[in-house]
C-alpha cells in the first residue's frame, strides 16, 4: 500500500513536470512571436526616426557651409584674406575640420594640403557643375590621411559669382551629430552609391575606422532578404529614389534592417542607416530569458517544496504507523498489531514445524504500583518488555496486551526443553531487577504455553490453550510456567 502511494506521487510529479515544460515552451514560443512582430514594427519606426535624425544632421552640416557663404556673400569688402581669418576662428565651435575659400580666379585660401587635395580631386571643376552646394565623394585627405568629404558653396554678389567657400568634414561627423542614446552603439551609418555598389562607413566598426570604402559585391552573395524584401529590389529603389526605402536581411547569421535617405548636392549618393535587428530584439530576448529563468526557478522551487512535503508526510506516516502498532510505554507490539503480525507469520511457517504461544503475566504487579508508585511500575514493565524482546530476539514476537500481561508467539521451532531453559534464564534476570533509585525489587512471573500443532490446530485454539495453562500456573501459586500438554 505504501509502495503504490510512492509510485503515484512519482507519476504526479512527472505529469507536473511535463505540464510545466509544455506551458514554458508555449509561453516562450508565443513570446518569441510577439517579440518578432513587435520588433519588426518597432524597428521600422526607429529606423524612420533615425533616418530623419541623420537627414537633419547632414542638413546641418550643409547649412553651416551655406550660411557662412551667405554671410560672406552679403559683405561688400571682398577681402578674401580677412574672410579667411574670420572663418578660421569658427573652427573651435563648428563641426567641420577645416574651412577655406576659393576666389574667382581660382586662388585657394587654405593650407597647402587643402590646395593639393582640391587640385588633385578636381573639386573646383566638379563644383562648377553643381547648381548650388557641391558635396564631394569621400577621398583620402592629404591633411588628415583619412577619407573625408568636402562641401563647396558658391559666393555670389548681385547674381555674379565671386568665388566659393569650402569646408572639410570627417565622415564620422554625420554619425556624431545624429547620435542618440538609444541604439547609438549599434546603429551604423554609411554613405552608399547604389550605381557603383560602393559604400563608405561613417562610423568606426570594430577595427575598421570611419571613412573606409567597400563594395556591396563583396558581401552580396551572403545577403538574404527577409519578409519579401529583396535586396536587389531595394538597391533598385535607391537608384530610383523610390519607396519603400527599407530592407530587412540576414548576413552571416545576423539580421539587419536598413533604410536610405537621399542627399541633395551629392549626386547618386545616399545615406544608409543600418540597425542590427538582434540588438533591439536582444533587449527583448534578454527580458524573455529573464522570464524563462524565473519560471525555471519557480518549477525548481515547487519541486523542492513538493519533495519536502512528501518527505514530511512520509515521516508522519511512519510515526503514525509506529503509534498505531506499538505500545507507547514499552515499544512492544500492541494487541492489534501483534495479532496481525502473528497471523502473517503463522501462514509462513513450514508444514510440520512447531510453534509456541505464550501468555505471560507479572506476579503481583498491582502491589508494585501501590507500594512503589506508577513510575516504578512503568520501570518494571519496560524491564520485562526488554527482557522478553531480548529473550525471543529472532525467534518470536512479543506484545504488551494490557496492564501487566504480555503475549509471545514463538515462531521458531524451539523444543519444550529449549523454552524451559529460556524461561529459567528470564526468571533469573528478573529476580535481579533494581529500580532506578537502587531499590532491589525481585520480579517473578507466571506463564502458560501451548504448542502447535500438538495442542491445537489453529491459532485461535492455540491461544485458548495457552490461556488455560496460564490460569493453571496462577492457581498453582504463581512464579512458574505451565505447559498445556501437562495439564490436559
Amino acid at each position: 500500500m505504501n509502495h503504490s502511494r510512492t509510485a503515484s506521487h512519482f507519476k504526479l510529479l512527472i505529469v507536473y513536470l511535463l505540464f510545466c515544460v509544455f506551458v514554458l515552451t508555449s509561453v516562450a514560443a508565443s513570446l518569441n512571436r510577439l517579440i518578432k512582430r513587435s520588433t519588426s514594427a518597432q524597428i521600422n519606426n526607429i529606423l524612420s526616426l533615425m533616418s530623419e535624425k541623420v537627414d537633419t544632421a547632414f542638413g546641418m552640416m550643409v547649412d553651416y557651409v551655406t550660411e557662412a557663404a551667405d554671410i560672406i556673400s552679403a559683405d561688400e569688402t571682398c577681402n578674401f584674406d580677412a574672410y579667411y581669418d574670420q572663418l578660421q576662428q569658427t573652427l573651435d565651435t563648428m563641426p567641420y575640420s577645416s574651412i577655406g575659400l576659393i576666389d574667382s580666379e581660382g586662388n585657394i585660401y587654405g593650407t597647402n594640403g587643402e590646395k593639393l587635395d582640391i587640385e588633385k580631386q578636381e573639386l573646383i571643376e566638379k563644383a562648377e557643375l553643381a547648381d548650388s552646394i557641391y558635396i564631394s565623394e569621400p577621398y583620402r585627405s592629404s591633411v588628415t590621411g583619412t577619407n573625408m568629404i568636402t562641401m563647396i558653396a558658391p559666393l555670389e554678389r548681385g547674381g555674379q559669382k565671386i568665388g566659393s567657400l569650402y569646408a572639410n568634414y570627417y565622415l564620422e561627423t554625420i554619425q556624431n551629430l545624429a547620435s542618440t542614446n538609444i541604439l547609438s552603439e549599434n546603429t551604423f551609418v554609411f554613405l552608399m552609391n547604389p550605381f557603383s555598389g560602393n559604400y563608405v562607413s561613417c562610423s568606426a566598426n570594430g577595427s575598421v575606422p570611419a571613412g573606409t570604402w567597400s563594395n556591396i559585391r563583396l558581401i552580396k552573395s551572403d545577403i538574404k532578404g527577409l519578409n519579401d524584401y529583396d535586396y536587389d529590389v531595394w538597391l533598385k529603389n535607391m537608384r530610383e529614389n523610390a519607396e519603400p526605402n527599407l530592407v530587412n536581411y540576414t548576413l552571416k547569421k545576423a539580421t539587419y534592417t536598413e533604410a536610405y535617405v537621399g542627399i541633395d548636392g551629392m549626386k547618386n549618393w545616399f545615406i544608409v542607416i543600418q540597425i542590427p535587428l538582434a540588438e533591439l530584439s536582444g533587449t527583448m530576448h534578454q527580458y524573455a530569458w529573464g522570464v524563462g529563468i524565473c519560471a525555471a526557478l519557480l518549477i525548481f522551487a515547487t519541486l523542492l517544496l513538493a519533495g519536502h512535503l512528501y518527505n514530511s508526510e512520509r515521516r508522519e506516516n511512519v510515526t503514525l504507523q509506529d503509534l498505531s502498532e506499538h505500545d507507547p510505554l514499552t515499544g512492544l507490539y500492541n494487541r492489534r498489531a501483534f495479532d496481525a503480525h502473528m497471523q502473517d507469520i503463522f501462514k509462513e511457517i513450514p508444514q510440520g514445524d512447531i510453534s509456541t504461544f505464550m501468555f505471560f503475566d507479572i506476579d503481583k504487579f498491582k502491589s508494585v504500583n501501590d507500594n512503589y508508585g506508577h513510575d516504578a511500575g512503568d520501570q518494571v514493565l519496560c524491564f520485562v518488555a526488554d527482557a522478553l524482546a531480548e529473550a525471543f530476539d529472532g525467534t518470536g514476537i512479543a506484545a504488551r496486551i494490557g496492564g501487566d500481561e504480555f503475549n509471545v508467539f514463538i515462531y521458531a521451532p524451539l523444543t519444550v526443553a529449549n523454552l524451559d531453559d529460556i524461561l529459567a534464564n528470564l526468571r533469573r534476570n528478573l529476580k535481579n531487577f533494581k529500580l532506578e533509585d537502587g531499590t532491589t525489587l525481585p520480579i517473578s512471573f507466571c506463564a502458560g504455553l501451548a504448542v502447535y500443532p500438538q495442542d491445537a490446530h489453529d491459532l485461535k485454539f492455540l491461544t485458548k490453550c495457552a490461556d488455560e495453562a496460564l490460569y493453571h500456573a496462577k492457581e498453582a501459586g504463581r512464579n512458574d510456567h505451565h505447559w498445556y500438554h501437562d495439564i490436559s
Partner: protein
Amino acid sequence: MRKILLSASAILLISVLFLCGCSAESKNSPQNTAESTIYDFEPVTKIKDGQKNIYVVLKVMNSQYWQDIIDGTAAAGSELGCNVYVGGPSGEGDWQTQKEMLDRAVNELGADAVLLAPSDSSSLVQETAEIYSSGIPVILVDTIVNGESYNTCYMTDNLQAGELAAEEMLEQLVSKGTDEKEELSIAIQITSTASQTVIDRLAGFNQYWAANAPENWKVLDEVKLNNGDKEKAKQNCLDFMAQYPDLKGVFGCNNSSTVGFVNGLTENNRNDIVLVGFDYADETAALVASDNFSASTIVQNQYSMGYEGVKDALDVLNGKKSEYKFIDTGTVVINHGNYREYEAEVDKK
C-alpha cells in the same frame, strides 16, 4: 524522492547551461601566429659616424616590389647623408614581428627615425603612436595605419588607382571598336576581402565605371578571391570565361589576380577580352608586350615611397615638419603603347 530531486536539478542545470550556451559566443583566437624568419636589420648605405640612423621595417623582404622600396631608401640615404638599415619578416601579415622590430630599433638600436610598411592597419596603431609621441619621426610607406599618430604616409591612392584602371579598361574597349549597345560583362578578381588596398582599388574601379561606362557594359556582381594563390587565380579566370559568355574585360586588383588572368587568357587564347591589372610581373609584362592581346597594367611608384620616406624623415629631424599626412606617390598605366619607354626607364634605374 532524492532521485526525483536530483533529476529535477539536472533538468534545471541543463536548461541554465543551455541558456548560457546560447548567449556566449566563442571568441576567435587571434590569427597571425604563423612562424616566419626575420630578416634582421642590414645596412643598405655606407654607415658613417655622426650621421642620423634611419630604420626601415617592411612587410616582406623577398620580392622585386619591396626591393624597389629598399633601393629608394638606399638612394636617399646615400644622397642625403644618413645611415639606413632595412629589415622585416619573411611572411606577409606578420605584424607581431614588425612590432618587435620597431621596438628593437627604437629602444636598443637607437633609431633617430623609423619607416614602416605596416602589415596590419589596426594592430600596429598603438606601437606607432607610442613611438610618434616620444618624438621619433614615424614615416609610413605603402600602407597606412588607422588614426593620425604618424608623420606622413607615402603610398598609392588606391581609390584613384582603381579609377585609373576603369578608365583604361573603357579606353581599350572603345579602341577595340566595341559597340556601346553591346551587352558585355567585366569580371573582377581580388586576393582577399581582408586587404583594404585591393578593396579601395575595386571601389575606385566601380566608382569610375558606374559614372562613365555605357549602360550595357556591366561589372559582374560576382567577385572571385584567390588569397594570393596564382593557380587559384588562373582557375578563377577559366571559371569566369566558362560562366559568362559575354565576358569582354577582366580586372585584377593586385599582382596575383593579374597573373591569374594573364595565364587564363593565354591558355584559352581569349584575345577578345581586355585585361587591366596591377604590377609588372614577368607574365603580365609579356602579355602587355604581345601584339595579339589588349593588356594594360598599373604600376606603382614604390621606389619613390622609399626615397621620399627617408627624405621626409631627415626633414623632420632637421625641424622641417611635413604639412601632409598622406602623399600619393602616383601610378602609371603601362600598355602596349608605352611599355618600351617604361622598361627602358626601369633599366636605367
